[in-house]
């Protein structure tokens, strides 16, 4: 008589992993196809293109991660772009012409500031019980206003070591430092959280707040934690903005809304509780590579914006249809 093995058999585990990550795998597959396509239409596309791609997507990729954390927790943060602007101008202003040791302190301080900003957002959402979207919309004015107080117009500077951290290749010309920086940062912060009790709680409150509360999850504290994490990633995005452009700009870029778009394209449900971090990052890279392809095909950049909108709508429509079908089946 064969012995029953406890737990899922390896093949089942693999199958369920593939099912859970189907969307992300699809995105990665699409990215590879897109790379092949890029190489076909522009045979000179090579390591330089990859380097440019990695450096240019870094701020938005981090913004997408920031947004993904809070959306998984059932919220939404419309102040991501403003927090990026605020942390970017503060770092640019304080680092300008300073020694390396000072700039390290500045970077650590700015990261701590990001946590504080996020905690304030989350605290207000929990304490006032006003919908997340209203609170963070209002706070986006506040943070953008503070950014304007710090620097009235784009200026400041970035420490050279910070710039070296994200610009240029690492060893091999095919490995961009920006990509490594992104992987390291996300791995150091997100993986321990995801594997801990609080990570599970974030998914729980996003999935069903009442059920989570009745299972003993501290809903308020978990929500504040998710917002604090979003603040931290926004600060990282702001720092990467300073590092890659060399200055800080007080005017928030289009990052807030693009981060929401990337999160949805990356398979995170706006209803919360579903999705991961990798999907949104891959979605950001795909969007950027598509823009590049359109310039190769000498398509007007405005039509590229149109295409971006259509892709966003189309993908979400398909995703919703699939969900409706599955619910009926």
């Amino acid at each position, binding site marked *: 008589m064969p012995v029953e093995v406890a737990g899922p058999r390896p093949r089942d585990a693999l199958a369920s992993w593939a099912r859970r990550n189907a969307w992300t795998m699809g995105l990665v597959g699409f990215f590879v196809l897109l790379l092949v396509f890029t190489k076909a239409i522009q045979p000179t596309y090579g390591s330089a293109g990859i380097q440019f791609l990695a450096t240019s997507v870094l701020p938005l990729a981090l913004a997408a991660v920031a947004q993904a954390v809070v959306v998984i927790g059932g919220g*939404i943060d419309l102040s991501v772009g403003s927090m990026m602007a605020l942390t970017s101008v503060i770092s640019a202003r304080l680092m300008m012409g300073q020694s390396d040791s000072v700039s390290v302190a500045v970077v650590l301080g700015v990261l701590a500031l990001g946590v504080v900003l996020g905690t304030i957002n989350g605290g*207000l959402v929990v304490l*006032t*019980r*006003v*919908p997340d*979207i*209203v*609170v963070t*919309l*209002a*706070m*986006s*004015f*506040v943070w*953008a*206003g*503070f*950014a*304007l*107080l710090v620097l*009235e117009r784009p200026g400041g500077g970035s420490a050279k070591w910070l710039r070296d951290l994200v610009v240029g290749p690492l060893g091999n010309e095919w490995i961009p430092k920006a990509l490594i920086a992104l992987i390291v940062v996300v791995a150091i912060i997100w993986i321990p959280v995801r594997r801990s009790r609080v990570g599970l709680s974030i998914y729980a409150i996003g999935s069903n707040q009442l059920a989570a509360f009745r299972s003993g999850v501290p809903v308020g504290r978990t929500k504040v934690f998710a917002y604090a994490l979003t603040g931290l990633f926004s600060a990282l995005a702001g720092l990467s903005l300073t590092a890659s452009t060399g200055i800080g700009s007080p005017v928030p870029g289009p990052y807030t*809304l693009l981060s*929401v*778009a990337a999160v*949805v394209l990356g398979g995170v449900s*706006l209803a919360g509780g579903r999705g991961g971090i990798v999907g949104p990052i891959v979605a950001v890279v795909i969007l950027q590579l598509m823009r590049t392809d359109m310039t190769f095909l000498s398509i*007007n950049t*405005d*039509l*590229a*914006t*149109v*295409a*971006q*909108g*259509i892709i*966003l*709508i189309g993908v*979400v*429509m398909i995703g*919703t*249809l699939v969900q*409706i079908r599955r619910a009926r089946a």
Partner: protein
Amino acid sequence: MTAATRTNTWLTAGAWQRLFRDRPVIPLLGLLALLVVVSELVRPGVVTPGWAAVIVRASVPLAILAGCQTLTMLTGGIDLSVGAVASMSGFVVATMLNAPGTPTGIVVALIAAAIAGLVTGIGVGVFRVHPLIMTLGVSLVVLGLANVWQIQTVTSGLGVAKEIRTLGSGLAFDVIPYNLVVFVPVTALILLGLRRTGYGRLLYAIGDNPVAARLSGARSWQILIVLYVISALLAAIAGFLYSGLTNVASVTLVDTAVLPSVAAAVIGGTSILGGRGGFVGTIVGALILTVVESLLSSLGYPEAVRQVLFGAIIVAVAAAYTRVTGEA
């Protein structure tokens, strides 16, 4: 504290709460009056009929945009495409200044806006895409197409027609803004539509409880398609007024007014979760935001401080609502 006083304060607080919950316009008008008094106190002599006219003139287009938000928020949605649609409409009219003429331009702009609204409505109503994402995607499409249009028409003349300038920024007898000519009928239609028609009731119904509304026979996809077309048409009208007010035709002109329009609706007591709110509150909300902005700029505060206070006011008012209504 004795029992008597406690009962007493509880009663007054309860009465206030009920007033705030049932007639949010009254406390809002109180806030508006307070802000006007503060404006007069910090700079004596500033509050004149002319000042009021300028405030009203600036509030009208914002209130119409906030009307888009009010209507969509009643159903539990939001319309972030109003900025792109409004800018596009104002811009299209400006590009047709010389060739086919302004009336044709207005018709073309309204048709374009209606198409954008139709697409949004189909996405939200039929395909059940989250309104936030749908309107965001549509605004990207509209912005891109407007830019393409800009390149196509770069050779022909471009300018805001004199009639639209007068309509958007003119003052009759120096005290009555001409844009009220547009605003009063629009407001009447929205108010009557919300209060007196079955369609208005259905908007509240599907926002309050979509399942109950569906089970009672409401076809929410039809309601939503019509809703987003109306919202886009309102945005187009606001776009004409904005281009007339600023004498600028640009494809990004109204973008900065999108978030304030949401803020005006929220301050006016419309719940972003749907089912509660109205347009009168929204108008007062738009007036409050405009007075605050004028007050802060007359005090010489930089743009930065204005934005910070703006955000703080929105949070405070929204929190007050949640406190008294017990819901968001």
